[in-house]
């Protein structure tokens, strides 16, 4: 939304007004989930919450650029909005926050947002930064070997691009031209470490030059531009054009997680100023200016999201926790002791 054109001549390929409203709804739903996580944490009901505030636009844009049931998502722990927009339900999301036995991601084993959702092709990740990026390349390699039509999208923060494994993943993908999109959500911080201490370059996208495929930048607070950029990359991959590195410039509105306190390393001024970039009101305005939404619809969608999240919270909280015996399942196919 950098240049805020008052009227768009036409909507980008694949985006109808209905789809745009859906995108808006997922952003609102995510925000509601996100706030709920922090509220539950403050109430002492869950020990940990992560946030994606400031990242909703790129995440919903990316998810909408993929084909459900065909493409794979190998996300990272901040991808709540991407996951919800790719088919994860609020109940599933809340089950994971409450670490219930029935949590489909990990049966209460992992921190929130580590997935897996096999029936929707969302991969499981660990908390070890960037370790999932080579997996995404392997999934894409498998798709290519089997001549499937699938594209893999994997995402990570700008800090993650410092890890050696990230480099190895991009290098491999560049050689074998596997159908993959590498999505960097650059929020300028890795916990407390600013980008200037993370890398000697301004743009992560510049790193693509070392791998032989394009690196592109988009405004990650603009869902439409984000969609277009990722969509181009996805379709390039699908048609055999190989990988793209997409860098979405966004920001982190809150502390790293509920365990962090950003006031220890960020000025109050800076914290206030990023708030003005909130993608949700900006998208509201954009939709309004095009007559696609009005205040009534906004209010309706917000209360629908709240109902969904309330329902999910109550339901998830009531589910049973794992038992001590559950500790021993899924160590090996054949049981705990192989």
């Amino acid at each position: 939304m950098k240049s805020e054109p008052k009227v768009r001549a036409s909507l980008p390929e694949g985006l109808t007004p209905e789809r745009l409203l859906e995108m808006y709804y997922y952003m609102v739903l995510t925000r509601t989930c996100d706030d709920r996580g922090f509220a539950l944490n403050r109430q002492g009901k869950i020990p940990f919450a992560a946030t994606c505030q400031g990242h909703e636009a790129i995440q919903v844009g990316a998810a909408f650029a993929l084909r459900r049931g065909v493409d794979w998502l190998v996300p990272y722990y901040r991808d709540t909005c991407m996951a919800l927009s790719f088919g994860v339900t609020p109940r599933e999301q809340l089950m994971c926050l409450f670490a219930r036995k029935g949590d489909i991601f990990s049966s209460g084993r992992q921190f929130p947002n580590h997935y897996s959702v096999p029936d929707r092709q969302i991969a499981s990740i660990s908390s070890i930064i960037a370790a999932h990026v080579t997996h995404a390349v392997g999934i894409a390699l498998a798709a290519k070997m089997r001549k499937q039509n699938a594209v893999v999208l994997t995402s990570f923060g700008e800090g993650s691009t410092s890890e050696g494994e990230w480099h190895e993943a991009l290098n491999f993908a560049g050689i074998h031209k596997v159908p993959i999109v590498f999505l960097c959500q650059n929020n300028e911080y890795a916990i407390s470490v600013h980008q200037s201490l993370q890398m000697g370059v301004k743009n992560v996208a510049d790193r693509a030059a070392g791998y032989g495929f394009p690196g592109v930048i988009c405004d990650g607070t603009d869902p439409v531009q984000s969609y277009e950029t990722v969509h181009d990359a996805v379709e390039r991959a699908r048609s055999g054009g190989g990988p793209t590195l997409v860098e979405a410039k966004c920001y982190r509105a809150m502390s790293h997680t509920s365990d962090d306190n950003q006031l220890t390393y960020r000025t109050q001024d800076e914290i206030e100023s990023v708030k003005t970039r909130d993608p949700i009101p900006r998208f509201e305005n954009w939709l309004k200016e095009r007559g696609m939404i009005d205040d009534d619809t906004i209010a309706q969608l917000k209360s629908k999201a709240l109902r969904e999240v309330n329902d999910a919270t109550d339901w998830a909280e009531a589910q049973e926790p794992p038992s001590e015996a559950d500790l021993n399942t899924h160590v090996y196919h054949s049981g705990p002791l192989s």
Partner: protein
Amino acid sequence: MATKNLLEAVRETLHDAMASDERVFIMGEDVGARGNVFLITAGFQEEFGRERIIDTPLAEASIIGVAIGAAMAGLRPIAEIQFADFIYPAFNQIVGEAAKTRYRSAGGNTCPLVIRTPYGGGVRGALSHSVSIEALFYHVPGLKVLAPSTPADAKGLLTSAIADEDPVLFLEHKRTYRLIKGEVPEGRHTVPIGKADIARAGKDLSVITYGLMRHFAVEAAEKVAAEGIDAEVVDLRSIRPMDRETIIKSATKTRRVLIVHEDNKFGGVGAEISAAIAEEALFELDAPIKRLCGPDVPAMGYAKEYEEAFMPSPERIADAMRELARF
């Protein structure tokens, strides 16, 4: 002597080392402006500057690799791995490089490097902020592996580690950071590397342990003392080198051995402890050597039920003591 918790003891030791030796510097993720995720180095960057308190990129292999180079060049780096779970990407640098630098160059290059990292569970850290890693490293010649459990030992061993001419992996159990308090000697205080500590003297059975489990074992010993079981608790403190002498002495004295650690049982440090006893004191024993350890699953999970199921507790240790005493 002032009473401090373990975190404060580590903090004070790092501070003193920074202040007294300009070859010492600290590098790691979020150690600067944030002052480490547990606030151990809070304020250090203001005091010692950004050159000596380095916020590194998010890349563990280079944290260790760069530190190795600096150590080879004569500095005394203290490298931090934010959580022990994230040490795996640096495995090559630690095991393949740091541990072998002196040996492979026949003393031509050396690697006086301290790697600090918080490990262990009990803080709802889920699969990837809870692991124990000592068994993955204690097998490696050229490395030293320390795991203090009291604030005084944390200070004394960390001081020794920084003075050491070889690479030391320094494990801080994160549950002990604020839970465990104790008197800490003022001024420079060293504890020799490779000496176990008798945390509690006893005559009926020996518990060999380290880390958080030392405290659980002492707690359990007090419980069973009321029932007439007098347990000795040996805290290894140093896992490599391991104090065989103290282990064998205690085993020979009490004739019953219980090994306790939080790490998975199979192939854990307890295996070596047991094997050392079986080698040297087999006929001095009145009972099989028992191990009470974390179960053989990848790690404790996020749900509190998993954590409770995984961690040896004072209750479970007391039960194992009773069983052993009855044998």
